[in-house]
């Protein structure tokens, strides 16, 4: 298992204090820089977590370039790739200080926290100089091409093929559920390079351009009307062989690393996220806001529900902190992050349920609150299950916790150690 480069213990901060700027000095410097350089958040501007306006992508690239020029981009990434080489404590301080300002939040997930995190650990020096530096500097945005229509949870059973042809790979197949791909420049794409090996041993990770004549991308409309997910079709897409990340047919190792960062990002424990990130399906509106809006805030049963959800939200932060500490110290296996992921499904779903109950009939139709968040309570509810599906289903997480944390017997797999071309597939 690879050693993670996250470190959140106070010991780490003290240990490094000889070489590094102290968190407090950094905080003061950041505060001054932010006020002089970043635009103030406009409280009147609606920030919708489920819809992204096209202009945001332009704005956020510019904001990232500003951070980079000011020396505040990629706080936990090494300096040689454009980062600042600081600790998660510095990042936390920066996130706190940046709260009143516009931040390039759209670049956090997946570009910086998932794809860049993986490239730092697994990429070649050339790849890091190009793509990691590119992402940190705001020059490019990265996304993931992982899932395929043939199966979500069984990622290693993917069918997109890459054929080596001289100095290139030729890629054919189809990907889906790629978040924000339409706005990205490059994707880390997991493909099959050996059909005679068992499924995990015939995969490779290859960096591909998102927009190319040989690929067709379209946005997928979700039940709440949002369309942040994309699907892509590749027909003889040619990429240079140097875009291979790690070794050929060792893509599962690389993919595992990327999935680790995905769980961490979805679970809220990523050191590469900068600024207060609103999670998908989440909401800036609190249960207490809804209780007040419908005039039930003095009702005893309502107060109990609000208190309960407040407790759950607090516990979610506390458990993320604790598991991160456990994984950093090595007391917990990396798969312990699956517990964070479970909390990040259960607790927001409970919040949506409570909000729906409190909003009552106004969640479905209302003259008074027609354009306000009471209606959004209903819309948000349509994508409730997204919280336990995105980034791997909760059922997969439960397998992980029972098999990798509690060490219970693994599920039977009919495709284990079978050449992939002989594995049975549905139609």
């Amino acid at each position, binding site marked *: 298992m690879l050693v993670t480069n996250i470190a959140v213990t106070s010991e780490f901060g003290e240990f490094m204090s000889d070489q590094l700027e102290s968190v407090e000095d950094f905080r003061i410097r950041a505060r001054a820089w932010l006020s002089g350089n970043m635009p103030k958040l406009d409280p009147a501007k609606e920030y919708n977590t489920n819809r992204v306006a096209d202009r945001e992508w332009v704005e956020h690239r510019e904001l990232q370039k500003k951070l980079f020029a000011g020396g505040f981009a990629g706080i936990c990434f090494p300096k040689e790739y454009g980062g600042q080489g600081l600790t998660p404590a510095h990042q936390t301080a920066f996130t706190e200080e940046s709260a009143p300002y516009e931040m390039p939040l759209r670049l956090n997930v997946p570009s910086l926290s998932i794809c860049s995190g993986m490239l730092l650990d697994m990429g070649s020096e050339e790849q890091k100089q190009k793509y990691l530096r590119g992402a940190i500097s705001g020059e490019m945005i990265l996304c993931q091409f992982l899932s395929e229509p043939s199966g979500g949870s069984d990622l290693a059973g993917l069918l997109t093929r890459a054929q080596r042809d001289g100095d290139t790979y030729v890629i054919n197949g189809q990907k889906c559920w790629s978040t924000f791909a339409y706005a990205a420049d490059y994707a880390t794409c997991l493909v099959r390079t050996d059909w005679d090996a068992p499924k995990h041993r015939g995969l490779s990770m290859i960096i591909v351009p998102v927009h190319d004549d040989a690929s067709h991308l379209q946005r997928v409309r979700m039940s709440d009307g949002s369309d942040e997910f994309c699907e892509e079709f590749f027909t003889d897409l040619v990429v240079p062989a140097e875009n291979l990340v790690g070794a050929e047919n060792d893509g599962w190792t690389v993919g595992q690393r990327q999935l680790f960062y995905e769980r961490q990002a979805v679970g809220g424990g990523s050191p590469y996220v900068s600024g207060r990130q609103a999670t998908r399906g989440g909401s800036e509106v609190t249960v207490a806001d809804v209780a007040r809006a419908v005039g039930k805030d003095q009702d005893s049963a309502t107060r*109990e529900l609000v208190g309960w959800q407040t*407790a759950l939200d607090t516990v*979610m932060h506390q458990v993320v902190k604790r*598991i991160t500490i456990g994984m950093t110290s090595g007391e917990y296996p990396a798969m312990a992050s699956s517990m964070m992921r479970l909390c990040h499904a259960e607790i927001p779903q409970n919040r949506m349920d409570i909000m729906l109950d409190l909003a009552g009939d106004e969640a479905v139709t209302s003259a008074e609150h027609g354009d306000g968040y009471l209606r959004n309570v209903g819309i948000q509810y349509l994508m409730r299950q997204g919280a336990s599906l995105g980034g791997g289903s909760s059922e997969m997480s*439960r*397998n992980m916790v029972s098999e990798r944390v*509690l060490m*219970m017997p693994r599920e039977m797999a009919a495709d284990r150690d079978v050449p992939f071309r002989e594995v049975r597939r549905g139609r």
Partner: protein
Amino acid sequence: MDLELSEDQKLFRNTTAKFLDNESPIEKVRALNKAGGGFPAEFWAQGAELGWAALLVPEELGGGSISGNGFQDLAIVAEEFGRLVSPGPLLPVNTVIAGLVEGAESGPDHSAEIEGLMSGESVATWAVYEPKGHWDPLNPTTTARKEGDNYVISGVKDRVEIGNEADFFFVTAKTETGVANFIVPSDLGSVVIEPVAALDFVRHFATVRFNEVTVPASAMVGTQETAPAIIERMFQVVVALQCAEMNGLINRVFEFTVQWAFDRYSFGRPLASYQALKHRFSDMRTWIECCNATADEAVKAVNNRAENSARLVSVAKAYIGTKAVQIIQDCIQMHGGLGVTWEHDCHLYLRRATTDRQLFGTPADHKRRIADLIGL
């Protein structure tokens, strides 16, 4: 268990666990139940020698802890108590000590009482609940009437842990000018103690009647002005200790239930191989992680007297109070019919968890308190 304990604290945990393992294994707890419950005096005396009643006492009064974080250390003991459903007045005695220490600066001198409790020579408990009343410590019906240099205390307190063993009571009562706390010896003729049935396997509770009990003004703890702060401190201390204890309970039950899932075979395979059960174990493991996380934060907040300690304590009690019993019931389910027998230890843990859950604010009480604290 806190993942960031110091070396001193890890050592303290190990010695505490070893001591309890030797002196109060589950078989002894069962024997104690058979003999009527309560706690063996020599067991508590030994515990006091180990410092179980000294951790919240400042050094100038003879107390202290090796780590310098007395409340965290006390929570370690409470968690170990949970793991073995230990008997003994750990919660009531330390809650009273917290109150006495809190009132020391503003009120009459009670260092003799603190010393007695610390050495284990005496035990005491908070008489705060009243019959038919819910958790509402600032509005007692028990009265303390001023008569010359004395106070005359009248009223009934119930749900008083170790009510029949206590040497003195820490009584919360209402004076003509507001709520106040008093120390009342238990051996006065006008104090009538009636043991009552309790769900816990060994812990005793009683109803205590104060029939015009006369105590000197020096029996007051702190002052009327400081009384609400004293009560709040005691409340936070006892609730955070309940949370630590419940954590010990669920961690231990989960451990032996996971072991059972590996050892028990049905249809030729271990229970641990069934996905339906694995998923339930995963949820339980995740909830336990949450319980540990929130208890640690509450304990730290109380230890550091953090600004948000009231809220973090209520968050912990609302969450753990809800989940602990749910987890134990799920573990009982995993044991099948064995889980609901007297012979199996599950019910010892469920009894303690339910007791901790219900007293000093149910989860529902704490949820409403959180709503108050966030300004709804």
